[in-house]
């Protein structure tokens, strides 16, 4: 079973987690001032990269905390996990997976 390295609990099985979509998407400060196209982009458009992807994950059946993870969308390897509010770590896809 795939192990995910929760920043609070350590390595735990994948079934305890839930993915919450792409990370680091900031809601505009003043939504009323945003153009329709930009608002549509904020709501619906995601990067969908091949390779490293920063995602939000919830350890729902564990500590109950959200955190961010860098996951390789090709190999499904979790390269890094980090707490909410921290910047995206500077890693490349060849980095050692955090759950190795």
């Amino acid at each position: 079973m795939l192990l995910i390295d929760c920043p609070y609990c350590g390595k735990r099985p994948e079934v305890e987690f839930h993915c919450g979509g792409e990370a680091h998407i900031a809601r505009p400060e003043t939504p009323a001032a945003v153009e329709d196209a930009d608002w549509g982009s904020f709501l619906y458009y995601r990067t969908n990269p091949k390779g490293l992807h920063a995602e939000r994950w919830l350890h729902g059946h564990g500590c109950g905390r959200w955190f961010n993870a860098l996951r390789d969308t090709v190999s499904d390897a979790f390269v890094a996990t980090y707490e909410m509010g921290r910047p995206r770590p500077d890693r490349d896809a060849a980095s050692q997976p955090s759950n190795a």
Partner: protein
Amino acid sequence: MLEVNVARRAPALSPVVSQASVAIAQSAPQGRLAFRIRPAALAGRSDIDGFDLTGPINSRISAGEGDGAGRRTALRLGPDEWLLLVGADEVDERSEAIGAALSGAAFSLVDVSHRDVTFEVTGEGADVVINAGCPIDLSAKAFPVGSATRTLLGKAEIVLQRLGPDSFTVTSWRSFAPYVRGFLIEAARHPH
């Protein structure tokens, strides 16, 4: 706080069952308090009304005298979340004492005694029985005595404690209790 909590009752389950070397028994009624506070709001205090809150995440610290009433057990389930175990008849007393000890701080303390049911799984091979439906590593190194965590058993969310090398408790929501109990009995009946 409700004066009379009519929901504080155990589910209607048939009596204790023992299979092979692993025994599965329903615990006596217990007081449970869901306690949440930001660690910063504790302001370095380690002891709130006798509960030791200093343990690392996913650990269990039991303080106090004796086995029954008076023991105060704190299960740290997350960075800011504890499950406090007290005697079944001292929930209101403890709630008021914790509230008084933390006056001025922002916290949440909810009586969930009636929400959960606890099963004791004891005997040689108890870890194998639980691992039949629980995916976490229950080896002595990864989940030593004194560990406690929220996890899954089959399709039900549980809080798992390790009290001894071959002694666990499995706590689930009351509505999941017949499923959890049946799951454990089946697992004990068909060891692998």
